[in-house]
């Protein structure tokens, strides 16, 4: 099953499953099997922003006045987010594009990944402003053991799927021995790896970002690092949309609206998917512990942050049909919502209030009164 960049098999994209059907040939959107992905693309593109639009110059002064423990919180979070977006800026493309079978989902994956690259560029924008030479921060991302622990978990499901897809593309189905290790490449196994991978990405988008979002907005509540906070709000808005897409994929499988075999797999691997989620929750709590090991900051400490992780996790797990496992039913950080409301995001300096506008939009509504004083 080698991949072709233009599959000459005539196929009907309306009857293809989302993944592991015939690879996409014509990028057409006039007919869609799952139109939700086209709607997500439109929404995502309407959110377009550039890091350079946000002025972060005041943050340098604020940063210099932070305590050592606050600096640790701020920089550690930026490192972690840099890792997350480094992974997300490439992995959906590498893992999902070779196996995707409907054009609207293919384009969504590309759009999604592209926006993650904007996020990555924005971290450089923030760090370049704070440090004359940000190399030390970037270089620590691959050395820091706390970050490494998370990186392993985040990338392993992607890597596994990518490797098996490569084996399948070059050897087809069957037992394949590479470097003395035998791999059983079957379509069922590939689909299982896909299912686990999407669940791991879902957990990433659902909760992994939120510990650092909370810290960023806690600084903003004290009128500190506001440029950074503006950028993170834009990122949070995008991540919410990415999360919806993975939730959509998982729900479409669970409800049998797509590949019937994926419905079976969703039932079969329910506990494993749950375990992925719970592990992500645990890791985020550990991360909160690491952040505050040198002391807390005004408005936020390890305990409240862990409660927030549980609150968010409940919400996210219900969205994919799991019972909420934690007792934390009320929001321990109510002010977070103010920063997550999409209409409060400022996209351009002159647009302080409203964001849901489209560039170059034309108002085509003409009422009779518009022509009231027109005479022949």
């Amino acid at each position, binding site marked *: 099953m080698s991949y072709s960049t233009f599959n000459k098999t005539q196929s009907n994209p309306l009857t293809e499953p989302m993944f592991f059907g015939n690879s996409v040939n014509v990028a057409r959107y006039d007919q869609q099997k799952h139109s939700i992905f086209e709607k997500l693309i439109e929404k995502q593109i309407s959110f377009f922003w550039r890091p350079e639009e946000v002025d972060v110059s005041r943050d340098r002064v604020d940063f210099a006045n932070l305590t050592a423990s606050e600096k640790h919180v701020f920089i550690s979070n930026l490192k972690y987010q840099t890792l997350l977006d480094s992974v997300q800026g490439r992995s959906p493309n590498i893992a999902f594009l070779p196996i995707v079978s409907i054009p609207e989902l293919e384009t969504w994956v590309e759009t999604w990944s592209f926006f993650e690259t904007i996020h990555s560029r924005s971290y450089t924008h923030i760090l370049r402003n704070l440090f004359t030479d940000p190399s030390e921060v970037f270089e620590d991302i691959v050395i820091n053991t706390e970050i490494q622990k998370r990186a392993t978990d985040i990338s392993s499901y992607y890597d596994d799927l990518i490797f098996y897809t490569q084996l399948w593309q070059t050897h087809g189905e069957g037992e394949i021995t590479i470097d003395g290790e035998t791999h059983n490449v079957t379509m069922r196994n590939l689909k299982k790896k896909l299912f686990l991978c999407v669940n791991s990405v879902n957990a990433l988008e659902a909760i992994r970002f939120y510990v650092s979002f909370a810290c960023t907005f806690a600084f903003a509540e004290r009128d500190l690092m506001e440029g950074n906070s503006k950028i993170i709000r834009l990122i949070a808005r995008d991540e919410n*949309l990415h999360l*919806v897409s993975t939730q*959509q994929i998982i729900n479409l499988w669970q409800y049998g609206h797509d590949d019937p075999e994926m419905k079976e797999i969703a039932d079969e691997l329910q506990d494993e998917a749950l375990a992925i989620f719970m592990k992500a929750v645990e890791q985020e709590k550990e991360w909160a512990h690491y952040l505050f090991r040198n002391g807390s900051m005004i408005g936020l400490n390890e305990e409240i942050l862990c409660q927030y992780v549980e609150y968010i996790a409940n919400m996210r797990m*219900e969205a994919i049909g799991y019972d909420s496992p934690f007792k934390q039913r009320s929001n321990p950080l109510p002010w977070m919502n103010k920063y*997550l*409301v999409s209409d409060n995001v400022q996209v351009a300096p002159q647009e302080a209030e409203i964001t849901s506008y489209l560039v170059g939009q034309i108002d085509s509504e003409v009422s009779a009164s518009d022509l009231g004083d027109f005479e022949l």
Partner: protein
Amino acid sequence: MSKSYKIKVNGQHELAVDASTSTLLEAMEAAEIETHYHCRNGFCGACRTQLIQGEVTYINEPLAFVRPGECLACCCIAASDLEINH
């Protein structure tokens, strides 16, 4: 035109809501019930609410997956008397 409906929330609050002026989320906020939301725009799904009885109409099409028996409070209005868990 006002469209007034009764909404029962979490089995304890009874609200009389004018569906022409407020979404389900706004109605709950006006009654000072603790609400859960993020985007308020129908795409994040944080305001997911259990719809036990009744019908809602969406004023903005939700992008989040709405599972059967649920509604997204930020972008829907009551279309009948409702019983919900939020």
